[in-house]
């Protein structure tokens, strides 16, 4: 206890200062606080609704299942309803004492698999002034229902969100509102993953079975996030079953995986593992090529919480390893290897006064390597070691306003070496540190207006241009009608870690991460977002959002690097804008979602403006989920996008290949060579496909089974992936594909 007192002393000292001047405004009110968890396994339920009908007031849980309802008139008892998708709504009577925090931890009981419906009690009121423009919250249940292209994948599910695009079926790499692929921050339990892909980019390394919840910002993200220009995906993993030991197993045509979880004294644990066992199915993705892809991922999480050591504290240790290997077992063929290792420790503290804090210590490493063996390829290697300590805290005032403060220290050691085509070795190595702080004020005291205004300040940067830089950000919501809210966000974003990725590569094996070289400035983005949310009818939500994004000093691989002296990267500019429309209608037993995006994206380098490869003018999705009852769930997804840019073929000329210039120019040195038009001025045909899925859940004795069948590209649309100018062949994307999965849970 003494130790606990010592560690929490600085925070306890800070609290009176933060509350100075506020307490005088305090009324005779009280607060209700608590965690909402699943009754069967103790997993936190993120983003569920806690609502007091009498007051028409409530809150939603955060990503760790914690909620706080402030300024409740005290001295009486209230009925508090707690509701969540797929769970039975619970109503509890709570007496609110004056100027006290009443702890109300709730366990929600999941609906039986036959009866699962969607309940959204009180959602409309809770969302009144939430500053959440461009934020999507994705539950694992949503992931499971949608059709699976071999594996359930969180990145592929993102592609159904308006504003998110991909360049083909072969890659799960995504692009957000005209930003590049390396401008997306991917956090797993707050730790950055540098290469989040298995199998040449086909799948995410994050196994959906380990996920509790996902928050995805496609722009306008607030001050607590840093380091990327375009989007943030914040994935929180499950804690593990706190009530009993459990075992899950699943198989697809590609992988086998397992999960073990269970209680430990004062906590829980979870261990997951996934391994590829057969890659025949991948031929469909790679134009019938057999590629010996072998991968696995492993993760563990241990939670500990004891009132004897730290009151209202929770500790978690987390580890994650992903490993990919493409080994032809042929000394004449190259070998590709890449791996991520993540290790983290987290201390969550809830204080007696309305204040939460989180201390995170993490190490994230990435290693990627091309081993040429006896092939004609050249060796390439990339290593990144990212050590981060961050401390965030949040104070909620009596008037519901909040203050968020945080500090982050990050050190990065990046090494990249390669030998180019003609044997020139180059190496980019840098060790640097970034110390940044942020502060923000959330003005939430008015029910119909919310404002989140703050800034990050980079005390020191990873690059010489990254220190002393402010990143101000503002997000607001104004509910001008009970059923309609105007939302907007503006912000400046800085990125200093980049990939050396060639835009002309539509399948890229090796994308090294480096700290931005000193000869170009760190990349900067400015986001302008505005939109309207409409909830006219119960179950119907419509949102319209517009965005404008400016990108400055984005690094673009110099395709005119022909000598050692030429720079590897050139500073480019980018601009993107568009409109996104989303409609969702949920009425038992249907859930219908339709989205449409009208967008433009441009890049400019050396004064030449072009469309990036992921620019598509029109994109849309229609998703229909249908609960057939008796454990049967069906879904259909139709996906459309107008043609992606490509560079047109103009003709051929006989090009001189100087294999042996010392013999002079002679007829044998000439080979036909295609020449192209202006970059990305042509458009591929429109892309569309229909996927269907059918899931059957059943329970036999003590075992839960889930059988899933997905039909991908049902009408076998020949979507063009690219034109191979060497062979004259048009390579199509995924043909019709039937896949299946089996899950067993004990």
């Amino acid at each position, binding site marked *: 206890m003494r130790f606990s007192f010592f560690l929490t002393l600085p925070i306890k000292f800070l609290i009176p200062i933060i509350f100075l001047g506020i307490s005088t405004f305090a009324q005779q009110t009280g607060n209700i606080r608590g965690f909402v968890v699943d009754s069967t396994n103790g997993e936190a339920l993120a983003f569920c609704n806690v609502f007091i009908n009498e007051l028409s007031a409530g809150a939603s849980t955060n990503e760790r299942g914690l909620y706080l309802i402030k300024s409740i008139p005290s001295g009486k008892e209230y009925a508090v309803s707690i509701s969540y998708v797929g769970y039975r709504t619970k109503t509890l009577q709570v007496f609110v004492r004056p100027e006290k925090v009443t702890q109300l931890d709730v366990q929600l009981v999941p609906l039986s698999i036959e009866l699962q419906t969607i309940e959204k009690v009180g959602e409309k009121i809770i969302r009144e002034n939430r500053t959440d423009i461009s934020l999507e919250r994705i539950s694992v249940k949503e992931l499971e229902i949608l059709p699976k292209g071999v594996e359930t994948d969180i990145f592929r599910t993102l592609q159904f969100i308006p504003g998110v695009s991909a360049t083909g079926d072969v890659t799960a790499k995504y692009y957000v509102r005209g930003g590049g692929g390396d401008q997306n921050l991917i956090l797993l339990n707050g730790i950055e993953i540098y290469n989040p892909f298995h199998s*040449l980019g086909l799948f995410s390394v994050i196994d959906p079975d380990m996920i509790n919840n996902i928050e995805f910002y496609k722009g306008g993200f607030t001050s607590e996030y840093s380091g990327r220009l375009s989007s943030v995906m914040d994935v929180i993993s499950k804690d593990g079953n706190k009530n009993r030991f459990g075992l899950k197993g699943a198989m697809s045509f590609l992988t086998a995986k397992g999960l073990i979880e269970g209680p430990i004294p004062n906590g829980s644990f979870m261990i997951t593992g996934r391994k590829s066992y057969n890659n025949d199915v991948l031929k469909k993705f790679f134009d019938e090529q057999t590629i010996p892809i072998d991968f696995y991922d492993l993760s563990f999480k241990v939670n500990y919480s004891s009132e004897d050591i730290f009151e209202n504290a929770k500790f978690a240790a987390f580890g994650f390893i992903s490993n990919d290997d*493409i080994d032809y077992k042929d000394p*004449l*063929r*190259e070998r*590709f290897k890449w791996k991520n290792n993540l290790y983290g420790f987290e201390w969550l503290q809830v204080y007696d006064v309305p204040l939460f804090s989180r201390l995170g210590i993490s190490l994230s490493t990435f290693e990627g390597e091309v081993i040429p063996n*006896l092939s004609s*390829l050249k060796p390439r290697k990339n290593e990144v070691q990212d050590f981060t300590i961050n401390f965030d805290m949040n104070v909620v005032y009596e008037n519901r306003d909040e203050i968020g403060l945080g500090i982050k220290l990050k050190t990065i050691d990046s090494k990249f070496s390669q030998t*180019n085509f*003609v*044997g020139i070795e180059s190496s980019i190595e840098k060790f640097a540190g970034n110390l940044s702080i942020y502060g923000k004020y959330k003005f939430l005291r008015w029910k119909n207006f919310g404002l989140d205004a703050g800034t990050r300040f980079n005390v020191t940067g990873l690059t010489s241009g990254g220190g002393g830089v402010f990143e101000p950000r503002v997000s607001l919501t104004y509910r001008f009608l009970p059923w309609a809210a105007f939302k907007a966000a503006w912000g400046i974003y800085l990125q200093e870690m980049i990939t050396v990725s*060639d835009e*002309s*590569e*539509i*399948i*890229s*094996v090796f994308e090294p991460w480096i700290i931005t070289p000193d000869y170009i400035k760190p990349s900067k983005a400015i986001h302008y977002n505005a939109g309207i949310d409409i909830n006219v009818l119960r179950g119907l939500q419509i949102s319209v959002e517009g965005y404008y994004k400016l990108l400055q000093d984005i690094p673009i691989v110099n*395709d*005119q690097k*022909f*000598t050692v002296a030429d720079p590897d990267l050139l500073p480019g500019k980018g601009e993107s804008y568009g409109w996104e429309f989303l409609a969702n209608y949920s009425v038992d037993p249907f859930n219908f979602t339709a989205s449409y995006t009208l967008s433009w994206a441009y890049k400019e380098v050396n004064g030449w403006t072009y469309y990036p490869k992921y620019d598509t003018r029109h994109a849309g999705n*229609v998703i229909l989920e249908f609960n057939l009852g008796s454990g049967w769930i069906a879904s*259909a997804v139709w996906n459309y996008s107008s043609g992606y840019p490509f*560079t*047109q*073929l*103009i*003709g*051929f*000329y*006989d*090009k*001189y*290949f*100087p294999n042996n*210039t*010392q013999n*002079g*120019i*002679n*007829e044998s040195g*000439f080979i*036909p060579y295609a*020449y*192209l*038009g202006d970059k990305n*001025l*042509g458009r*591929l045909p*429109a892309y*569309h496909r*229909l996927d269907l899925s059918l899931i059957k859940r059943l329970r036999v004795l003590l075992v839960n089974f889930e059988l899933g069948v997905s039909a991908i590209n049902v009408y076998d649309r*020949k979507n063009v992936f*690219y*034109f191979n100018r060497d*062979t*004259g*062949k*048009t390579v199509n994307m995924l043909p019709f594909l039937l896949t299946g999965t089996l899950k067993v849970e004990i």
Partner: protein
Amino acid sequence: MKYCKLIVLILLFVLVLSCDESFNPYGDFVERYAFNCILKSDENLQTATLFRSYRPDGFDPFTYTTDPSVFNADIRIWYDDSVFVFKDTSVVRQDTSRYKTPFSFYYNNQFQIGNRKTVELEVLLPNGRRLRSSSFTPSKIDFEDRSDVLVPSGNNNFIQIIWTSFDDGMFFLPKMTIRYNQNVNGRIEEKTKLVPLRYLSQGGESVPVFPTANASLTVVYNINAITRALDEISEGDPLKQNYSIYENLSFSVTAYDLPTTKYISSTGGSIDDLTVSVDVADYTNIEGGFGLFGSYSKKKYNQLRFFQNYIDSFGYNFIVEN
């Protein structure tokens, strides 16, 4: 029932859209011209080629069999206050599998280039269009005294030759040859054997690795490669005394100018077999066209010679030179 109707309607809608669209990757054809000329420092005969671009009926360029050579162009090169006009000519084509006509090219045999000089090009095509370019010839290279002179070099298992150049980042191509005489039925034939840097074992076979143009200012030959090259001279012939090896090895370094360096770099090779790259950089310094206008300068290193005992160990004769 109404839901079923809705689903059927949606399915019909997408099936209507499912018909495959034809895809033509070609843009509008614009005829372009490719000019190639690498001026030499070691001989007077300078050659150049001039071709027009073409578009085959399909996507296989080898189905296009009309000779794309452009005749009657006026090609002029300005060098050292003089202008040199190129004439067109042709030679019998070795490979007639695609083009049946003779191989056409332009030539001038009245000049060779020196170091660090400006050269300018203008091509006036018969249709009135012009191609222009210019370059700066490579600097002189000097061999360093610490370069090896004897083969083998003491107890070292390599031979290293080092040079310097005023130019930075340009490509150099080293070349080592063994000169020897072979007695073929009493007739002496003078021959050369190109020496690789080293041999690699690939699939149970030994494959020679020859130098390629690169920016390094040094080259290292494995002594085993030289030994192996000497062995190969008489491979399969038990009569080793029919072979006489010259004491001096021939070693030269070709220095390329900047455009040729960039051109060689751009034609260097592929990334790997899995990466799919849809655009490839195509370097040219021909204003208004494709191709290359460059130059090279060659320098010989005359110090390198065999140690007689080493040659004797092969059973060969040794030809001493002054």
